[in-house]
């Protein structure tokens, strides 16, 4: 010990000289004959861990010792003939040791290293019980490498540790009401020296319901692809705001690239594989709200390309952008290769004499994605001129100017770089890139007299054009009203639109177009929440808001599969190509299959002979009602290539069929926000009761069919 402590600084000095004095002639000031170093010269090694030491001489053989004891001891750690040190499982005191190597043939030639021993990294394997109730609780944490003095973090706080062994910690604490419904992460931290934390494992906190089952289910109908028994219970526990936050933080489920070229799995185009994957994402994805918003966005920024692998990138872009800013969405949609191809912005060149620039994207970007054709008030209602007529938002000349501003974009090279001229080879995996010599560099007069000056690049003109549109006061009311229509109600009150549009204009922090704020405003608005507190008969006969909307066929189908707990399969097995691409066309809506940029249905649709604005009713008529019923029949009886539904006597739903009222109330909870009107409930119980109790599956199937095909269910309100 004494010797090594004296020599150690000398060795460090020598080592530094060797490493830093390459220009010094060898031998002049270097180490003396027989001196060598050990690498590393200092080390931190965890209890039970190992560290390899290597001498600077490679030509000699060595003996190794720990604190002067050849080969070391159990208390200080052991070292083998190759210099591999194994630290003791519990720390000695003091927690430092010296590793020394001695050249076998020259006993006087030694080198050493100073080792500091650290506590091990704890590892949790389980926690018992896995669920705790709000209030005081005691938890037993099992695992390895726990050391005395370890602390346990629980959510944002710390538990009181009452005992620690190397494999078990017992701790007590208090779960707050705010934690109810959440999986709260637990983590063990060992103390210094070398403090470190374990993996994280969760305990579920159960508390009093934060909101009613009705509120939870209504919220889930608005923010997911349909409530399930599990998600209703979860939202009941954590409340709506926390559920929104949770969804905002969910990472994006990615659509994968189907195998290319087109395969037998997909059929004639890979687009069909993406349609199949849509089912997986919608029914089993964790990012339910994100994907629901992405579906709404895909029905605003309509760009279905039914070939190759065009859709995964586009859908991933919309979902990834769903909680960002509307300006971001505008630009990403504009430059997506799918949109470029669909509305012809890709390879739209500066027009030669005798031709004009392609107006397709320039027009529809304003008409459908951002502004609408007529000037709006901030509550979404039409502005009118002195004669009471609507006022057009833009002129044909402005359409032509935007068309020129968007010239000069092409498909990227396979590596994402820019080609030097227009590239007609599809590249669906990268945003479009500019080709400046195809950009129309003349000046353009846009909205409100804003001019893009001559000589700007394609990118400058694109950003300038989108900024010009984004700043227009129509964007907030135009877009917010459509988002409300997709998520909550087809005919929102002007005041509701105005409240949300105000948040679009300024999220409270001076940001325009902030999607999280806009979506929160839509979902938490009193008009969206008014039905939460009503009984079934109140909601049916005297609704707090006479609103809601028809479940569009695609959403309705996903609602059924989620509610009926369809059996999950891997997304990339593409099992639902025929179902999603073929069967759903019988009800008028397969995913990413709009027949034009005007979506499956127009936002302005008014039910004939009424004043009810109800976009989805554009698909609802005497020719479409029956096919939807037939589809329900097929799904319920597993007669199509949809995911498997279990309504057998032993299934969750089938088991309840022995008690018709219980079955009906369970379906009412699952599908109708626990708000099934009493006349419907009575009729349904009577029908089910008439089916023999020996046929529980038959009861379940008939009951589910009648609920999900009823207008009372199809109208989400």
């Amino acid at each position, binding site marked *: 010990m004494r010797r090594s402590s004296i020599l150690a600084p000398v060795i460090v000095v020598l080592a530094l000289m060797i490493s830093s004095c390459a220009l010094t002639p060898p031998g002049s000031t270097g180490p003396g004959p027989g001196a060598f170093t050990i690498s590393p010269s200092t080390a931190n090694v965890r209890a039970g861990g190992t560290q390899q030491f290597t001498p600077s001489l490679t030509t000699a053989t060595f003996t190794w010792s720990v604190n002067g004891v050849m080969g070391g001891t159990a208390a200080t750690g052991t070292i083998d003939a190759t210099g591999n040190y194994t630290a003791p499982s519990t720390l000695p005191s003091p927690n430092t040791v010296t590793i020394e190597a001695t050249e076998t043939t020259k006993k006087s030639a030694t080198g050493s290293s100073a080792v500091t021993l650290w506590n091990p990294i704890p590892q949790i394997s389980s926690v018992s019980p896995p669920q705790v109730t709000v209030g005081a609780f005691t938890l037993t944490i099992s695992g390895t490498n726990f050391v005395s003095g370890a602390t346990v973090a629980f959510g944002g706080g710390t538990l009181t540790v009452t005992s620690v062994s190397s494999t078990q910690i017992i701790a007590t604490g208090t779960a707050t009401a705010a934690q109810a419904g959440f999986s709260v992460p637990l983590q063990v931290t060992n103390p210094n020296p070398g403090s470190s934390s374990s993996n994280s494992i969760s305990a579920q906190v159960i508390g009093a319901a934060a909101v009613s089952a009705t509120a939870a289910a209504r919220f889930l109908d608005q923010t997911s692809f349909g409530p399930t028994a599990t998600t209703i219970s979860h939202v009941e526990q954590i409340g709506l705001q926390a559920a929104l936050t949770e969804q905002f933080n969910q990472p994006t489920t990615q659509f994968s690239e189907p195998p290319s070229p087109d395969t037998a799995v997909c059929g004639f185009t890979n687009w069909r594989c993406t349609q199949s994957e849509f089912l997986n994402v919608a029914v089993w994805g964790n990012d339910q709200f994100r994907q629901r918003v992405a579906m709404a966005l895909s029905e605003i920024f309509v760009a279905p390309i039914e070939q190759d692998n065009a859709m995964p990138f586009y859908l991933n872009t919309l979902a990834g952008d769903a909680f960002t800013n509307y300006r971001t969405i505008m630009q990403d949609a504009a430059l997506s290769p799918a949109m470029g191809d669909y509305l012809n912005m890709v390879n739209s060149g500066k027009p030669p004499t005798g031709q004009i620039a392609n107006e397709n994207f320039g027009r529809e970007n304003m008409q459908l994605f951002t502004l609408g054709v007529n000037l709006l008030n901030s509550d979404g209602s039409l502005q009118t001129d002195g004669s009471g007529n*609507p006022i057009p938002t833009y002129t044909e000349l402005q359409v032509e100017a935007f068309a020129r501003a968007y010239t000069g974009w092409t498909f990227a090279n396979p590596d994402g770089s820019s080609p030097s001229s227009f590239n007609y080879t599809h590249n669906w995996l990268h945003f479009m890139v500019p080709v400046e010599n195809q950009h129309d560099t003349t000046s353009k007069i846009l909205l409100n007299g804003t001019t893009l000056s001559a000589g700007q690049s394609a990118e400058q003109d694109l950003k300038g054009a989108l900024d010009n549109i984004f700043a227009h006061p129509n964007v907030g009311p135009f877009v917010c009203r459509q988002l409300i229509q997709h998520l909550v109600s087809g005919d929102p009150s002007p005041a509701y639109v105005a409240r949300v549009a105000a948040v679009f204009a300024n999220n409270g922090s001076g940001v325009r177009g902030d999607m999280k704020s806009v979506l929160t405003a839509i979902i938490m608005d009193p008009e969206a929440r008014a039905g939460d507190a009503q009984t079934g008969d109140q909601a049916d006969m005297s609704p707090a808001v006479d609103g809601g909307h028809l479940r569009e066929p695609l959403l309705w189908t996903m609602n059924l599969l989620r509610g009926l707990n369809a059996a999950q399969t891997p997304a990339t097995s593409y099992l639902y190509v025929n179902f999603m691409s073929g069967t759903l066309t019988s009800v008028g809506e397969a995913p990413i299959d709009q027949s034009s940029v*005007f979506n499956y249905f127009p936002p302005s649709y008014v039910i004939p002979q009424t004043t009810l604005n109800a976009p989805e009713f554009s*698909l609802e*008529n*005497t*020719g479409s009602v029956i096919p939807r019923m*037939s589809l329900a029949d097929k799904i319920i009886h597993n007669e199509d290539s949809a995911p498997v539904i279990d309504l057998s006597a032993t299934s969750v739903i089938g088991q309840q069929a022995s008690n018709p009222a219980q079955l009906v109330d369970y379906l009412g909870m699952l599908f109708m926000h626990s708000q099934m009107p009493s006349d419907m409930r009575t009729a349904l119980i009577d029908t089910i009761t008439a089916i023999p109790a020996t046929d529980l599956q038959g009861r379940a199937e008939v009951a589910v069919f009648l609920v999900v095909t009823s207008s009372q269910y199809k109208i989400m309100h």
Partner: protein
Amino acid sequence: MSHSRRSFLTNASLLAAGNLLGFRPFGMLNALAQTSSDYKALVCIFMFGGNDANNMLIPFDTTGYNNYATIRGPIALAQNTLLPLTPAPNFALHPSLPEVQSLFNSGNLAFLANVGTLLQPTTRAQYQANSIVPPSNLFSHPDQQLEWQNQLDSSAGSTGWAGRIADKMNTQYNPGALVPMIASISGDTLFCNGTGTSPVSVGSGGPGTPSCSDQSYCSSRQTTAQQFANMSSGVSLIQEDNAITNNAFTYNTVLAGALNAATPLTTVFPTTTPFGAQLAEVAKLINVRAALGVKRQIFFVGAGNFDTHAAQLATQATLLAEVSPALLAFYQALQEMNLANQVTAFTCSDFARTFQPNSADGTDHAWGSHHIILGGAVKGGQIYGTFPTLALGGPDDVASNGRWIPSTSSAQYAATLAQWFGLATTDLPYVLPYIGNFSSNNLGFLG
């Protein structure tokens, strides 16, 4: 809020027909209806997206063709590929229209040139000086589709001109009918909706009852479903959806029964395209007119994807090749039913497209267009209306890109069809509120 969608159901026999087990025996209805030979039908064929009629009906004389080819440049069709029109030698057709060519040459098909939405006669000078009220939101697909269908001053009007014809004619011509006067084979369209009448929608797969795998429970299941559909609700949308559901039960039962009992037509349709399948369905429904108890019917079918902003030549060639043989098959089916003189089909579209091409070998949204009228009652082999001057910045151009100001109003087009169908002249203003602004309400292509 009105619930007159339900009004059709006030007839007790129809409520009975809504019961799966209670529909009437069709033999009796056949006997009632077949006594009348007074039958007429109109078939509206909507070419969604804006058909580029500038490449459908083309000047064929040397001067005319050369002017066309010079301006259209890369999307000009070669003169030697065009299909000549014998009775109108200065014009020729797109090469994908041989069946249309033969129907024109045999006198059973006519064209109406440069027709479009207009509220009053309009000149270039008037348009540019803003001294007339133009149709609202020109050049916008949905607005122009809806204004073709509603013949009102904006797309906001909630009834269509066929629906308003039914308002005026249904009671007189179709008393006791089991289905509405109007049937759409192309979904819900404004064209079909009246103030007091509603259409029946039929998928091109035909009508039917819900499939049921609940075996012995199917009957009670259906009874309960109908019970649900008759429960009243304070939620307006539930009321509306219930009304549609009730009508669906009624109409599908009636239609499926009538079609199942009918002798199939032998005419073969090109049913591999949705458009051919739709016209085939129209022919089937006309074939059971007696069982349905109707003497006047209006049908709506649609063909899509005419929005050729790029690759105009290839796209339009494919689309017209779907339309043309289906039109011939339809005409042959009418001949098979001895109804060629009693059924008239006609095309509509959002608008025509710029005569000047864009830099993507496509064309953009324009206005006045050329349309097809087909049927034995058509005074065929003629081009009606006034063909536009094909000059950029010329007398018919809105500005300088070849967006033709219509020389004939779609209201005049509709008025001619409606009067042939039997609409009283005195009812024209109800159906076509702006018809009085035009000098003629009959273009003479039917007689």
